[in-house]
C-alpha cells in the first residue's frame, strides 16, 4: 500500500506543477502598495462608467482639472479657463503635456475625448467641446446647473487620439495615458498592477495635484468579490488596504477594537456621502397616491435612529434634515431636536386613523439585497402602528427594472451617493420628461422649484428653505440614514496629509509613506 501511495502523491504534485500558471511576483526592494476592491476590473477602457474599475480609475487616467488640498478646483492638464459666453467657457491647456508613450497632448485630443465621452457615459453636463487653437478648446454646457464647469472638467479622461485609435481593443487591456502610473500587468477580472511613470510630464512638484502624486513605486489593485475574503486578505497581509467593509465586520478594526493594534480605520463619509432613502410611489395604484395622512403616518412611525442601528449595527447616522446631514445646503429652519418629522408613534397613529389605509392591506416595499436589513427594520416599526408590509428583495437587475416603474411598489428603499442636497432633490423630484417625477408624483410646482435651486443663481438658502417646506407638506420621500464609508488599512500606511473630504475617495497611492 505504501509504495503505491507515494506513487499517487508524486502524480498529484506533477499535475500541480504542470498547472501553476504564473509564478508569484518577485518582492523587490521597491515600496509597494496593494489595495483590495470589490469591482471586477473587466476593462480599462477610458470611456466607460467608473463602476467597472472603481478607485483604480484615478490611477489610469487624468482630467483637465483636479481638486487642490483646499478643495478648490484647480487646472491640471488645463492651465486655466474663463467664461466667454452664456454657457461656453474657453479652456487653455498646458503645452508640455505628454502621455507615457511620448505623444504630445493637444486641443485636438481633448476635443476627441470629450466628443467620445458624450456618446458613451451618461448624465454629463456639457453639450460640446471644440478645439479653437493649438492648446485652447471651447467647452459649452448643456444648462446652467450648479457645479457648472467644474464637473465636466474633472470627469472626462484625456488620452491621445492617435494612441487610442491605434490600440486594437480601444485600450481595454493596455491603456496609455498621461497618468503618473503606467499599467505594468493586468489580468481581466482579477488584478491591475501599476509602476511609477519615471518621466512624468508634470516636472514641477508644486503643480502636481494631490490625487496625481505617486508616492509608491508599485501599486496593485486586486479584485475580491466576497466580503469575508476581503477581510481575510487584509488580515493575512495579501492586501494593505480595503474600502467599505460591512458594518458587522468593521467594528473590530475601529479604534479600541480587537484588531485596532495592527489596523487602522477612517470614516470618509463626510467626503463620499452614501444616503439610504425611502421613496414613496405617487402613481394611482400606490396606497400613498393623494393620501398625505398615510405618508405622514409612515414618516412619523419610523425611528430613523432605530433603522440606522438595525441596518448597520450602529455604524450609520440618522438623517435629521430632508437629505444628507453632511451636505452643506440643507434647510436650516428645523427647530425640534429630532429635526425633520421626528419619530412620534402616537402622532403617526393619529395620521393613520385619518388616512384611508385599510388595516391588513400589505404595502409593497421594494428593497435590494444590501438594503434588506433596513427594510426588515422598517417593517417592524410600521407593524407597530398597524401597517403591514410585504418586502420584496429581488436581484439587482429586477430591482433596477422595478425601481424605475413606480406601479410595481408602494415605497422603495434606494441607496445612492451624491454631493449636494439640491442636486439630489433635482434628480429625484424633477419632471423626468413626461409630466411627472421619477417616482410618479405629478407636481409641476415642485418640479419647477427643484429645477430652480439646482441652477447657479437659484441656489440660495432662502430658496432651499422654501423647497424644504414644500417637502415637509408633501412627504414624497423619507431620507433614512447616512451609511458610514470606511477605509481600513494596516498600520504601515498613513494618510493624514490627504484631504479625502474634498475628493470623496482616499487616494492611498498619493499619501506620503511613513
Amino acid at each position: 500500500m505504501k509504495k503505491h501511495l507515494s506513487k499517487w502523491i508524486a502524480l498529484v504534485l506533477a499535475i500541480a506543477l504542470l498547472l501553476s500558471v504564473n509564478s508569484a511576483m518577485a518582492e523587490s526592494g521597491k515600496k509597494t502598495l496593494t489595495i483590495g476592491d470589490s469591482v471586477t476590473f473587466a476593462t480599462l477602457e477610458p470611456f466607460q462608467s467608473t463602476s467597472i474599475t472603481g478607485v483604480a480609475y484615478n490611477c489610469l487616467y487624468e482630467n483637465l482639472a483636479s481638486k487642490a488640498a483646499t478643495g478648490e478646483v484647480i487646472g491640471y492638464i488645463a492651465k486655466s479657463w474663463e467664461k466667454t459666453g452664456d454657457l461656453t467657457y474657453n479652456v487653455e491647456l498646458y503645452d508640455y503635456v505628454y502621455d507615457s508613450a511620448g505623444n504630445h497632448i493637444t486641443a485636438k485630443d481633448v476635443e476627441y475625448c470629450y466628443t467620445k465621452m458624450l456618446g458613451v457615459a451618461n448624465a454629463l453636463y456639457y453639450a460640446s467641446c471644440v478645439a479653437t487653437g493649438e492648446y485652447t478648446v471651447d467647452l459649452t454646457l448643456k444648462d446652467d446647473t450648479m457645479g457648472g464647469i467644474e464637473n465636466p472638467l474633472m470627469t472626462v479622461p484625456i488620452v491621445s487620439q492617435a494612441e487610442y485609435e491605434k490600440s486594437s481593443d480601444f485600450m481595454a487591456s493596455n491603456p496609455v495615458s498621461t497618468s503618473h502610473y503606467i499599467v505594468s500587468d493586468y489580468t481581466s477580472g482579477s488584478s491591475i498592477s501599476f509602476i511609477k511613470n519615471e518621466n512624468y510630464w508634470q516636472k514641477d512638484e508644486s503643480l502636481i495635484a494631490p490625487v496625481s502624486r505617486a508616492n509608491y513605486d508599485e501599486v496593485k489593485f486586486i479584485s475580491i468579490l466576497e466580503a469575508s475574503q476581503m477581510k481575510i486578505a487584509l488580515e493575512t497581509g495579501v492586501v494593505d488596504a480595503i474600502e467599505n467593509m460591512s458594518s458587522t465586520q468593521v467594528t473590530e478594526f475601529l479604534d479600541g477594537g480587537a484588531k485596532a493594534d495592527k489596523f487602522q480605520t477612517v470614516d470618509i463619509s463626510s467626503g463620499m456621502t452614501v444616503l439610504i432613502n425611502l421613496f414613496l410611489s405617487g402613481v394611482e395604484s400606490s396606497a400613498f397616491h393623494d393620501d398625505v395622512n398615510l405618508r405622514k403616518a409612515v414618516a412619523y412611525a419610523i425611528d430613523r435612529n432605530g433603522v440606522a442601528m438595525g441596518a448597520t449595527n450602529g455604524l450609520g447616522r440618522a438623517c435629521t434634515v430632508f437629505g444628507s446631514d453632511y451636505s452643506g445646503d440643507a434647510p436650516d429652519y428645523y427647530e425640534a431636536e429630532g429635526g425633520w418629522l421626528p419619530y412620534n408613534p402616537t402622532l403617526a397613529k393619529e395620521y393613520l386613523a385619518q388616512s384611508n389605509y385599510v388595516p391588513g392591506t400589505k404595502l409593497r416595499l421594494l428593497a435590494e439585497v444590501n438594503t434588506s436589513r433596513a427594510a426588515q427594520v422598517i417593517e417592524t416599526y410600521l407593524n407597530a402602528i398597524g401597517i403591514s408590509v410585504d418586502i420584496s428583495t429581488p436581484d439587482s437587475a429586477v430591482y433596477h427594472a422595478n425601481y424605475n416603474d413606480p406601479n410595481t411598489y408602494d415605497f422603495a428603499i434606494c441607496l445612492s451617493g451624491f454631493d449636494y442636497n439640491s442636486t439630489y432633490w433635482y434628480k429625484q423630484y424633477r419632471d423626468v420628461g413626461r409630466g411627472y417625477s421619477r417616482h410618479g408624483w405629478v407636481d409641476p410646482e415642485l418640479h419647477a422649484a427643484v429645477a430652480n435651486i439646482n441652477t447657479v443663481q437659484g441656489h440660495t438658502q432662502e430658496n432651499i428653505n422654501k423647497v424644504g417646506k414644500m417637502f415637509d407638506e408633501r412627504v414624497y420621500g423619507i431620507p433614512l440614514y447616512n451609511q458610514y464609508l470606511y477605509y481600513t488599512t494596516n498600520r504601515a500606511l498613513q494618510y493624514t496629509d490627504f484631504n479625502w473630504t474634498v475628493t470623496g475617495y482616499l487616494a492611498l497611492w498619493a499619501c506620503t509613506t511613513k
Partner: protein
Amino acid sequence: MLKYFAKRILWMIPIVICVALLIFSLMRLIPGDPARMLVSRDATEEEYLNKRVELGLDEPFLTQLGKFLTDTFLHFDFGKSYMTKTSISRDIGPRMVRTMELGLLAAAFAMITGILLGITAATHVKKWQDSLCMIIALVGISMPAFWAALLLIMLFSVKLQLLPPSGIGGIQYYILPAISVGLYGTATFARQIRSSMLDVIGSDYVTTARSKGLTEREVIYKHALPNALIPTITIIGGFLGQMFGGSIVIETIFSIPGMGLYLITGINNRDYPVVQTCVILLSIIFCIAMLLVDLAYAMVDPRIKARYASSKVKRNK
C-alpha cells in the same frame, strides 16, 4: 469506431443550436432590462431609450435571434459584452482556461482520493478501514460544496494561514477550490470503486490470477483494479456536470475569474451576450467531456471497442 463518434459529434451540432435557441429566448424572458442596468438610476427616459436602441434590444425578437444565430454559428463572433463593450471571445479565453484547470485539478483530486478510499475499503471488507473510508465518503457526499469551501477557508487560510483565501496565481490558489469542488466527486468515486472492486474480487479471473502465484498486490492492482475502474469512468461524466455547475458558486467564493464567475456577473447585470456565450460554451465543453468519457470507456474496454468495430464491419458488407 471513429464513425460512431463522428456521428455523435455531428449530432452535437443541432443540440448546441437548440441550446443556443433555448438560452436566447430564456434571456428575453428574464425580468430586468440590460439597458436599465447601464444607464444610471437617475437617467431620464430618453437616455434609457437611446441605450435600448444602441444595444439593439428594440428590434423584433426574430431579427435579434437571426442576427445572434448567424453571428455565433456562422462567423463565430460572440459579440461584445454590454457592460464592458469588450469582445467576449477575447475575455472568455483565459477564463475558460482557468475553469478547465480548476476542473482538471478537482477531477484529479477526486479520482486519486476516491480510488485510494475505494481500494482500502474493498481490500479490508468488514474491517475498520472499510467503515472509516465509507464514512468519509458519506461525509463527502452530504457536505454542500459552498459550505465546505467556507470551512476550508476558515481552517487553512485564516487559522493556519497556509493557503491564500482567494484570487489566482500559482497552484496554491487552486488547492482549496479544487478540494471543495472535488469533495463530492471523491465520495462518488470511492463508493463506486468499492462496489465494483467487490464484484471484481469475487470473480473467477481474480482467482485464476491468484492461482498463478501472483502477489496479493499484483492481483489487486494488475487484475482487479483495471476491471473495477471501467464502470467508474461513466461516473466521471456525472461528476464533470456537477463540477461545471459547482464552479459557479466556488469561483464566486474564491474570486477566481473563471467561466462560472463570468456567467454569474453576466446574469446579475443581464449581460445577454456574455450569458449566452457562457452557456453555449459550457454546454459544448460538457458534451465533449461526456463524449470523451464514452470514448475512454470504449478505448479501455476491448469488449466495447470490438462491438463498435464489428458494427462497422457489418455495415461494409
